[in-house]
């Protein structure tokens, strides 16, 4: 067979050897029909009888379980229980003994990793490949890492007398439910604090399964309390007078409200908020690997990632090549059942989030952006968004300025390194960024000019419990992870 030439070369990905479904079985997991609040080591009914809300599976729109809605009164009981546990047990334990409990939690998570991964995917819509390979292993890693510090705080902060703060009130988002719980609870416990944590209303289940694990780990009652509910519950927790420290991860808007309500109090706080990260591709980058980095940066977890690389800045000389490769690459992304092991992009977390994303896509088109979506089909039921690229957009487009929190990438080009840096920094956010070049010196030169808390070079979305994470400007205050993440839970 001689070499033949095609005039318009095009890659075809469908129609031959399509992968059969390979669903992870959810038979072995147990989810109760109804969950109460976890306070003082017990599941207790909310004070107003019958105040329960449903949590649904976003890939089927079916109800999974009902969850109690904590009132101000319930939050008060939870904080009191945390205070009692702090005074009576947790502050009396040595660091070594606290470490034993935290190590036990870490090991139990590893033992039940599969169950946690499946429930995380059912409740939140993220692909099982990610909950299995990223979320849950990192959860265990955060508990292991912080357990190691519990009896070494004097070494962590040399020459000081580290003391706990007391009761921490913690509010976490729906994009990495159990991982955000670990980011919050692990350093709090290691530092000697007790906690009241509120998971997001759309993804409460793994936190409640974690409460069962806390019972099995035989933690003293009240050291960890989980109260479920929506904004009102969170507000009650933040405003409770006996909370010493507030930790919040979520939207910048809610972060502003929390910061306002904390003004004038002596509560310590950390806020992890939104982001609009620039992923900068220079023409001397390893292009094929950079394309993978772009895909990982924006399509990881359906783009529900505060540090997502949602703005692509690509040098003009390679812009066409990168765009062509990107459009071919997104054809191979499998969109569908989160429990299928081959799924790359799962379900959008909620109807409200899907509406928000769709509104931004429409806005992007109305403002003259050139839209391109993968040709994949999506299931009839459930909340889905195809991987979406926008070309011909500029700094003044709303999809470039706003955090969309979905699988939507805004692509811009640049000519010089200075222009790339200027565009990257020209945002109210400053959480993360990426730089792709084969030249080491350029990495140092550019990254030192980017105003963002986390910057990856020749990779993206890499997390490790030893590494601090947090933002500049409207992306928040304080750091989580590493020693920097332990500090906000310590009085020196």
């Amino acid at each position: 067979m001689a070499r033949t030439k095609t005039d318009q070369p095009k890659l075809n990905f469908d129609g031959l050897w399509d992968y059969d479904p390979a669903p992870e079985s959810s038979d072995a997991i147990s989810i109760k029909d109804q969950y109460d609040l976890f306070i003082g080591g017990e599941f207790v009914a909310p004070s107003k009888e019958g105040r329960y809300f449903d949590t649904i599976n976003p890939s089927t729109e079916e109800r999974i379980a009902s969850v109690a809605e904590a009132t101000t009164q319930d939050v008060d009981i939870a904080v009191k229980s945390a205070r009692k546990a702090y005074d009576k047990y947790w502050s009396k334990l040595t660091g070594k003994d606290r470490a034993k409990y935290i190590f036990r939690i870490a090991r139990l998570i590893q033992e039940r990793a599969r169950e946690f991964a499946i429930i995380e995917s059912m409740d939140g819509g993220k692909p099982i490949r990610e909950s299995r390979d990223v979320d849950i292993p990192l959860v265990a890693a955060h508990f292991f890492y912080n357990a190691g510090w519990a009896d070494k705080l004097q070494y962590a902060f040399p020459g000081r007398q580290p003391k706990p703060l007391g009761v921490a009130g913690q509010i976490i988002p729906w994009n990495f439910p159990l991982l955000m719980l670990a980011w919050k609870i692990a350093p709090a416990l290691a530092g000697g604090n007790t906690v009241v944590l509120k998971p997001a209303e759309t993804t409460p289940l793994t936190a409640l399964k974690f409460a069962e694990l806390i019972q099995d780990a035989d933690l003293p009652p009240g050291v960890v309390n989980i109260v479920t509910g929506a904004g009102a519950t969170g507000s009650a927790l933040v405003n409770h007078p006996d909370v010493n420290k507030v930790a919040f991860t979520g939207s910048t808007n809610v972060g502003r409200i929390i910061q306002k309500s904390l003004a004038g109090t002596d509560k310590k706080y950390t806020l992890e908020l939104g982001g609009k990260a620039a992923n900068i591709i220079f023409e001397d980058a390893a292009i094929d690997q950079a394309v993978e980095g772009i895909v990982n940066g924006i399509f990881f977890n359906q783009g529900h990632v505060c540090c997502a690389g949602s703005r692509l800045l690509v040098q003009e000389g390679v812009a066409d090549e990168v765009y062509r490769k990107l459009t071919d690459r997104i054809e191979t992304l499998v969109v569908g059942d989160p429990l299928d092991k081959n799924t790359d992009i799962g379900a959008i977390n909620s109807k409200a989030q899907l509406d928000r994303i769709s509104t931004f896509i429409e806005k992007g088109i109305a403002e003259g952006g050139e839209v391109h979506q993968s040709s994949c089909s999506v299931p009839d039921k459930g909340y889905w968004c195809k991987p979406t690229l926008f070309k011909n957009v500029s700094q003044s487009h709303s999809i470039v300025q706003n955090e969309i929190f979905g699988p939507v990438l805004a692509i811009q080009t640049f000519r010089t390194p200075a222009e790339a840096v200027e565009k990257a920094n020209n945002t109210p956010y400053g959480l993360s960024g990426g730089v792709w070049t084969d030249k080491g010196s350029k990495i140092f030169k550019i990254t030192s000019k980017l105003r963002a808390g986390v910057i990856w070079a020749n990779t993206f979305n890499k997390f490790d419990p030893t590494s601090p994470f947090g933002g500049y400007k409207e992306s928040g205050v304080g750091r989580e992870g590493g020693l920097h993440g332990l500090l906000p839970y310590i009085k020196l």
Partner: protein
Amino acid sequence: MEVLNKIPDFRDTVPIDTVGVLERVSRLNKRSIKKESKMDALKMALSMCDLTTLEGMDTPGKVRQLCYKAQHPHESIPDIPSVAAVCVYPNLVRTAKESLKGSNINVAAVATYFPSGNGTLESRIEEVKYAVNEGADEIDMVISRGAFLRGEYNFTFDEVAATKEACGDVHLKVILETGELETLENVRKASDISMYAGADFIKTSTGKVSPAATQPVTLVMLEAIRDFYYKTGIKIGMKPAGGIRDSKTAIQYLVLVKETLGIDWLNPDLFRFGASSLANDLLMQIVKQQTGVYQSADYFSKD
């Protein structure tokens, strides 16, 4: 051969990030291939095998046995595809050709002083002409790694171009011997040179050097093929050879091909496995898929 006007400057290096390549391979290896798609993959892989015997002790008898196996991989399974080609030394091409008469299985000959390539260009070209004359349908040449590693990229280009000229219409596979090129950037460069110089296929290894085919190397070569296709509209084939022994690995290679180049490459015209023991493992897995139980290796003919 069509004239390629825009031949790149091969002194320029295409950057390849090894960490990124390994991550991509590891992600592709997580694809879960089950049920019908597994059966399809096993049969597809079998149809892409180049059954190979490249020993000093090869005899016409051994080659005839291999050719029979190539046409009748396993009598008890109906609808089983035959393999793509039988790969032998030039002096056994005629024997193989006669044994395969009437089938559509090709005979490939390794030539150009396989496996080292250390001969004069004239004598290597003579060997190619001899193999073509004996009836070879495909020529598997080796590049001179010494010249390549000295930076004599023009030499590499010219030797491939000269071999292609000697091949005429016969299919040319260019073996890069990636285990001796060592870096992925070298693999990419050698792939580019070979394709621009006229290769129909690029192939990882002779099987005589370790490591032979690996998935990271294969991915880099597939990406080179993709870039060449984008630029020229010409589809070049890929052949990983050596070290691929089981069905699971073979399916992982097919996933690499499908998600890098697409379905147009999922056929023996554009993708081959150079392997000797892979075929029987594929057959065992096909029987397992059909019956639900594994059979002993004794129920599968060795060659």
